[in-house]
């Protein structure tokens, strides 16, 4: 499955400003609690972890559980400290892995 992810980071910010980052990953987040019509359990297939690093330093991390809705949306904030790149990484069941990056100019 193609791992499609979208992140929204303001392209520029003032130094010290608190910026909001929105992330969205395309994933079914199969809970592992549902059954098929024939009664077989559909195995769990979820994203379990999300990490955001700002110029290589981890600033936000989240553990996801089956109760997170499909196509997990995570919004959080950070302080714009310096120009550089924000790296986003999602990992999950069955070897799922997706990455995305965004650059920011801090003035």
């Amino acid at each position, binding site marked *: 499955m193609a791992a499609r992810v979208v992140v929204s980071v303001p392209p520029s910010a003032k130094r010290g400003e*608190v*910026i909001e980052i929105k992330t969205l990953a395309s994933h079914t987040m199969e*809970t592992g*609690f*549902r*059954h098929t*019509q024939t*009664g077989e359990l559909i195995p769990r297939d979820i994203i379990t972890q999300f990490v955001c690093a*700002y110029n290589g*330093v981890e*600033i*936000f*991390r*989240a*553990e*996801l*559980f*089956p*109760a*997170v*809705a*499909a196509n*997990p*949306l*995570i*919004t*959080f*904030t*950070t*302080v714009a*400290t310096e120009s550089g790149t924000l790296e986003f990484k999602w990992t999950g069941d069955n070897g799922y892995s997706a990455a995305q990056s965004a650059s920011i100019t801090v003035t």
Partner: protein
Amino acid sequence: MTSRRQFLALAGGALAAPAAMAQLDPNIAVKRRVALQNAIHKVVGEAELKTGKVKLDIPPLIDNGNAVPLTVTVDSPMTAAEHVKAIHVLTEKNPQPFVLAAHLGPRAGAARISTRARIADTGQVIAIAELSDGSFWSHTVSVIVTLSACLEDGLI
């Protein structure tokens, strides 16, 4: 046209579904409550869980439990000395109490996270914040769910 064999297979399936529901544990409500308490204990440990500081923003009436938008805001200056270390979101009626655990630090600038959750049934949703001084604060909201997530399995 539906053959007799197909019809019987379908009818058998329809009968089997309520039978599966009937096998549900009658003590499920108690078990879910105990599971939630255990989950809270796992987060908080022996520390005292106080109410306040945390604001869980979630619609009180949920049409579709499959994707419920929620925002957790914690009243904190977010400095190196005093900040929020983690925000946990838990539910009362889901098969597993945990929804999301977010780990943040002073670089977050503000303690505010948003996500979308699956909520199985009318009950409580709890947000717990872990502060850098080791204290735990919570906010509990009761929500009403009209269309539940995972209702088709009779899980709730």
